[in-house]
């Protein structure tokens, strides 16, 4: 109890509480600890992120930029790039529409089974892509009823482009919805209800109130979705059939080139894929910088 009473005979205790050196606030750490932690994080970042990325580019350019560009002229590389872009061109817009619809239903309405729907949307995050791919093979493979019908009608799903698009869509499904739900929930329905009371039709309310409110989050979700769609390997590998020049996407082609002792071609394609990813990342950072506040709600959920 004595300690609680400050002795006027010992004024130094007022100026120097505990053993904390002067001039340092309670929220900061000793210099050596700060430097160690920063160095540790930087070292980890370098080893885990920058070095591998640099290695990819270095490998691609090991025989000069000429042979790197030449390797991209390979018809197989061409068709792989084209297939990847086609896949993203189908999967991303469709997932944007589905994601928007799902987020709209979940955020603006109360209904039975809502929690179940949210779980369902998250499913692709928790299911391994390989399992997802195998599911499509089981469902649409030649030995299933549906798959047999499609094959008989000349529209093979598995081991053809539709299967690749489907598998990609499955894996990238949650990205847009997951981005939109927290924002839409936070915004509530007041503005939409106001628009309706002012006489706007449902479609007009959606166009003029709902969509503008979520547009940056939507774009953000689309970018994430796109990055994953172009890079997906596991699920696509299972449903692709690996027909060269036909059902081989960029990630699959990279593996094939590597296995065929064509490191320049493999790493050039890998560098291109990484560049596509970096462009997406840059766009995402730009969005965060421009519209940080609006995206904060979503970011808190990640």
């Amino acid at each position: 109890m004595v300690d609680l009473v400050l002795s006027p005979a010992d004024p130094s205790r007022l100026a120097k509480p505990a053993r904390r050196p002067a001039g340092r606030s309670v929220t900061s750490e000793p210099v050596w600890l700060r430097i160690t932690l920063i160095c540790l994080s930087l070292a980890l970042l370098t080893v885990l992120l920058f070095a591998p990325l640099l290695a990819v580019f270095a490998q691609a350019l090991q025989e000069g930029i000429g042979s790197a560009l030449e390797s991209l002229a390979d018809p197989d590389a061409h068709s792989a790039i084209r297939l990847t872009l086609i896949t993203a061109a189908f999967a991303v817009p469709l997932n944007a529409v589905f994601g928007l619809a799902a987020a709209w239903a979940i955020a603006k309405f109360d209904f039975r089974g809502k929690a179940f729907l949210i779980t369902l949307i998250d499913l692709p995050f928790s299911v391994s892509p390989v399992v997802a791919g195998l599911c499509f093979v089981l469902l649409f493979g030649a030995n299933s009823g549906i798959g047999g019908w499609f094959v008989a009608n000349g529209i093979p799903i598995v081991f053809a482009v539709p299967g690749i698009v489907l598998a990609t869509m499955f894996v990238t499904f949650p990205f847009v919805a997951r981005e939109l739900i927290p924002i839409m929930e936070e915004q509530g329905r007041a503005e939409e209800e106001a628009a309706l009371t002012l006489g706007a039709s449902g479609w007009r309310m959606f166009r003029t109130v709902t969509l503008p409110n979520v547009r940056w989050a939507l774009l953000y979700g689309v970018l994430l979705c796109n990055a994953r769609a172009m890079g997906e390997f596991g699920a696509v590998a299972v449903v692709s059939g690996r027909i060269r020049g036909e059902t081989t996407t960029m990630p699959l082609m990279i593996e094939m080139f590597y296995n065929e002792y064509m490191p320049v071609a493999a790493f050039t394609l890998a560098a291109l894929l990484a560049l596509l990813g970096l462009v997406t990342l840059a766009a995402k950072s730009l969005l965060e910088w421009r519209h940080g506040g609006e995206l904060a709600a979503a970011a808190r959920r990640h």
Partner: protein
Amino acid sequence: MDRMLPGDAHAAADATADRTVYVFDMYGAVHQMVVSDDSDGPRAERREEGLREAARLTPALVRRWLAGAAIAVIGLGLTLEPGAVLAADTLLNVSYDPTRELYKEYDKAFAEHWEALGHGVPKIKTSHAGSGAQARSVIDGLDAQVVTLALASDVDAIASKTGKIPEDWQSKLPHNSAPYTSTIVFLVRSGNPKGIADWGDLVKDDVQVITPNPKTSGGARWNYLAAWAWADKQYGGNPDEIRTYMHDLFAHVPVLDTGARGATTTFAQRGIGDVLLAWENEAFLAEKELGQGEFEIIRPSLSILAEPTVAVVEGNLHSDAQKAAAGEYLSWLYSPEAQAIAVKNFYRAWDTSKADPADVALLPALDLVTIDDLGGWKKVQPEHFGDGGIFDQIYQAK
């Protein structure tokens, strides 16, 4: 969807354009307000303007986006090769990992041969992966016209599970439908630092052996069976001693890759292990592609005659022209020209009349057992590699 505004509210609002307005008061009651042009208050006007401005921006944007996306998709779609439309001379050859280079060269030669016979330019597509995985894909509906797999048992699996290949497929082409053969050799690092000469050396204390997983890789089954054949001879058929040897062998394997090519990469590019059990052709290729003088090929005292087999998938032939092309694609593999290509790619061929003698000299005669000496695939496959089979037993006993 039970908490939305009453549907008739906006229906009515629409009917009279923007003249009718419903307003909720704080008690939840709905008030209908009819507003005429000149009675618009300044607040209402502002709000209307806001809506209109937003409306002016967004739909135009959305439309532009949609149009852009549509054009992009159509454009991309147009450039997509008509893969689904099968030309008469289109063939899909579903093969296993180590034959990539062989079929790249053969497809070119075959295209010229097929054209010389007075046909159009054939479009030959190839697919490579582990032999077992490829068989699985064909069973699941991969539209292969010909399969060129590592093991007869993989072709058997397609035949029995789908009926797309006749049961007697192996008698349809010469030499048990194996146009080229290979064997299993050791690839060691230059100078053979661990002094590996035969199967017995693989279980020395400090030796790490690289081989793929016999469950998924055809090549790995040949590796396994070659080791088994040697142990069988070495230990005079004593089953316990053979099993002990096999168990010791797999205890020396640090990584079980899924395919032959993956194992080669592990050994040659990632530098893991002291000895790679590999197809002879794969060992030569690794040496050629990854640096002459970095590796040495060691031939054990006894190995196995590995017979990769080929078959037409009759159930996947969509026209007579395709049938003719598929048949010729496989029978021409036995021609002296094609056999020379096989030898050039380090396969052992039956007819070396047109092959470069230097290539032939690389493949000296060896003491080889055949799969039939071990009882044939129909017996070996379930006994050794089936679920709970001998491989599972020795590998789990680890």
